[in-house]
């Protein structure tokens, strides 16, 4: 059973019901063949560049498991045929991706507050994510690696790495 993730963008000019029903058809299509782990409605977002003259889109992300990979191409064919879908991307998740998604759903990824998260999983995939709007029903428990990473990120981006000749460090 391989775990996959498909993210697609629905045309925003449709009515809200049409958008939901479009997404629902694909949810049903997938759940017929395999099991759905999670659906994420990322909602209306600004696109980084216009697609088909539209500047916003409704993003959906479906994570699912199928025993057989053949339905992926059928699903993608359906995406291509559907005019209401602007873009899609299917990704197969490796074990780290699966763990990352699980952790993010459980709120383990986010800003750090308490130190106890540090002991929990030294290998935990901590990331500076912005899932606040989507995920947390509860306030995000902070994980230590994340904040350290933030500090490191600030440090690294503020003072970019320059090998050896240090007297002139390029400001980024």
């Amino acid at each position: 059973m391989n775990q996959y993730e498909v993210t697609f963008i629905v045309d925003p000019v449709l009515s809200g019901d049409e958008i939901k029903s479009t997404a629902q058809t694909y949810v049903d299509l997938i759940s017929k063949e395999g099991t759905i782990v999670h659906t994420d409605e990322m909602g209306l977002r600004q696109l980084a560049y216009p697609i088909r003259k539209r500047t916003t889109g409704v993003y959906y992300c479906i994570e699912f498991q199928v025993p057989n990979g053949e339905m992926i191409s059928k699903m993608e064919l359906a995406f291509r045929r559907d005019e209401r879908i602007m873009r899609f991307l299917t990704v197969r998740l490796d074990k780290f991706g699966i763990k990352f998604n699980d952790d993010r759903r459980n709120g383990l990824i986010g800003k750090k507050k308490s130190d106890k998260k540090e002991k929990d999983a030294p290998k935990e995939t901590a990331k500076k994510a912005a899932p606040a709007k989507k995920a947390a029903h509860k306030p995000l428990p902070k994980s230590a690696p994340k904040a350290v990473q933030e500090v490191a990120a600030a440090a690294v981006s503020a003072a970019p790495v320059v090998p050896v000749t240090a007297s002139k460090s390029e400001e980024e």
Partner: protein
Amino acid sequence: MASRDDIKFLSNPNIGSLRKKYCRFRKYGIRHVDYKDPDFLLQFINEQGKVLPRRITGNSLKYQRKVATAVKRARHLAILPYVADLLK
């Protein structure tokens, strides 16, 4: 010729080498780069939207490649732009 003891510098000649570079993924145990997360990926692209080279970000090769594919996927999904200016 002045011996080495006589040479005095106004500032410590070792001053610039203190910053150790490291791969932040290795150091913090991050194994997966999410393409859906533009705020995280912004660290690895410059103001024009181009992926920053490894010698600037300090990433190891394995994670630099993951970051690059994540950025490219994000560009495909219009989460990040292909071409931009004043992105940050």
